[in-house]
């Protein structure tokens, strides 16, 4: 089972490689990837250095070009594909069929992984991408239960990668337009969700308010931890009750079901978090390397203490295995 770790910059990539990642995924400094945040991602020079370092240590480098180009901006995606392939990237992670078509027109065999942003949640969708573009692997959306993951890993004509750890997006990825509804910028087109440029914090004495494009997302009292105003994680009024109408801030952690994922034939575990610090990447990669080796080589379950330790790195107060567990749904 391969461990695929995130890197938002060269330092993080080194940490991921040094701590045992089998592959590191990165993005270019533009909206062609779904973590298009200020100060994050790789210039072409960075990519060259990154590939050199990773390859010296037998680690692969994947590049996410996983947003959807509007026709008016098509050239930027085409350029990014050419650039990443030219620099020697091992695999492209792609969501848009136009981009896949472009890659296949130039290179009949270049490895393509289907991004989670393509929202392929069933066998028919996976067969579609395999038939049309001969993709090698698909990253499954975080909306599936363990049983559904097992079924797909067994029956799909390609490798399956699942999310193991990190922030939990509760909507089917690639099919959520809430962010552009409120700010004009979305994961699909701009590679951002609830973008920082639209966030406003207002200190009202004992209450801290977070806003997105002026709409109130949440209010925190002094004893509450104020989280980033990702719009689906705020508290809203529904039929007179103020509640987390869509989702509480929680994180995903599948370490506890790692043996089941291994047994199902899942090819790779993905760690979310290109926006995280090099220190975070180092710790999380190290723990996951140990966990996968425990399960795959030593054939034992992961120590519950280690799972607890990992939870300390999580966003929000609690971790969950998310949709993998039916009761969460």
């Amino acid at each position, binding site marked *: 089972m391969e461990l695929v770790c995130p890197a938002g910059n060269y330092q993080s990539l080194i940490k991921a490689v040094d701590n045992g990642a089998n592959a590191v995924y990165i993005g270019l400094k533009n909206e062609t990837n779904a973590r298009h945040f200020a100060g994050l991602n790789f210039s072409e020079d960075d990519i060259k250095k990154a590939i050199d370092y990773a390859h010296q240590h037998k680690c692969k480098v994947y590049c996410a070009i996983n947003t959807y180009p509007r026709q008016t901006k098509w050239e930027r995606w085409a350029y990014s594909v050419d650039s990443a392939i030219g620099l020697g990237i091992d695999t492209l992670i792609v969501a848009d069929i136009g981009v896949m078509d472009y890659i296949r027109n130039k290179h009949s065999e270049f490895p393509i992984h289907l991004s989670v942003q393509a929202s392929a949640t069933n066998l028919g*969708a996976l067969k579609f991408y395999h038939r049309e573009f001969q993709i090698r692997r698909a990253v499954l959306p975080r909306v599936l239960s363990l049983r559904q993951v097992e079924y797909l890993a067994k029956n799909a004509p390609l490798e399956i990668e699942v999310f193991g750890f990190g922030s939990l997006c509760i909507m089917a990825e690639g099919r959520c337009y809430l962010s552009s509804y*409120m700010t004009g910028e979305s994961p699909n087109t701009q590679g951002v969700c609830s973008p920082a440029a639209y966030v406003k914090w207002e200190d009202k004495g004992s209450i801290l308010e977070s806003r997105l494009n002026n709409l*109130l997302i949440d209010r925190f009292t002094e004893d509450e931890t104020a989280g980033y105003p990702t719009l689906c994680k705020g508290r809203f009024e529904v039929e007179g*009750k103020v509640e987390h109408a869509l989702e509480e801030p929680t994180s995903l952690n599948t370490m506890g079901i790692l043996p089941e994922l291994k047994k199902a034939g899942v090819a790779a575990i993905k760690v979310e978090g290109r926006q995280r610090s090099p220190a975070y990447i180092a710790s999380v990669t190290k723990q996951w390397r140990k966990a996968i080796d425990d399960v795959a080589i030593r054939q034992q379950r992961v120590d519950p203490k280690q799972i607890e330790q990992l939870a300390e790195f999580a966003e929000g107060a609690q971790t969950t295995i998310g949709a993998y567990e039916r009761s969460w749904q």
Partner: protein
Amino acid sequence: MAQVKKMKLSLAANPYFWQKQKYFDFYHDIASTNIDIIYLGETVCSKRREMKFEDWLDIASHLSSKGKQVVLSTMTLIEAASEFKYMNKICSQQDFLVEANDMAAVYLLSENRLPFVVGSAVNLYNLTSFNRFKNLGMKRWVVPVELGKDDLNSLTSDVSTDEIEIEYQVFGRMPLAYSARCFTARHHRLAKDDCQFKCLDYEQGIHVKTQEGDTFAQINGIQTQSSKVTNLLSQLSELAEKKVSVARISPVGYEDTINVINQFSDQIKGDSDESVCHQLKGLKNDYLFCNGYWNQIEGMNFVE
């Protein structure tokens, strides 16, 4: 206005969960409006089983006999084997055109060599994707909600609309997100597997407001919609200029939907002057309107 006069009017699949009899009554009344195209089926949640496949076919045949074009819509988020099987049934029949709302439906329809409509939840953002879908059998494209007039301009300038129709939502709440979780059940502190079909209690979903009372979203089972209602009644000529040939209305409340169909139809047929008629009249519910996406800005805004 000449181009507008050629525009067809469509009714999207009803996104809400109603009692069986109400669907039958609703579509019976829809049959006597001037609507040209009607999309039928459950697109949100497979647990909504008031209507069997055969019930939808009954309605489809009736509408068809009244001269309407019927399109069967598939579910948007397909996970379980039972959902896949149901979709397969829709994608295997040849009496009605199918709206593919997931890539799995595109897969099955192209395997079966059947023509199809690409629904708005399938991500088609550029000409390369457009041509790929066209080669697979796309006959009509329902534009993703977050694309607007500039996107269409650059995409459709080289497209022949004789071959492929372009459909854009002109009225109704917009589908904005789908989840593994059911927000209606969650609101009632119920597990999804034991949701007690709470969606039946809400004709148009549940309104979600900010803590300051601003409108935010509409929850409808596993779907999140815009709480504001798209209204492009006064932009129909602009739509036609960008080669939109089908104007889509998404159902809201029963009576209001029929009223809105009639007013859009009057506008298209040229019975009302676009420059004068900016407002929908006589609606039962209070709707806040938006048209931001068409104008390439945040979807929730309204540009006069």
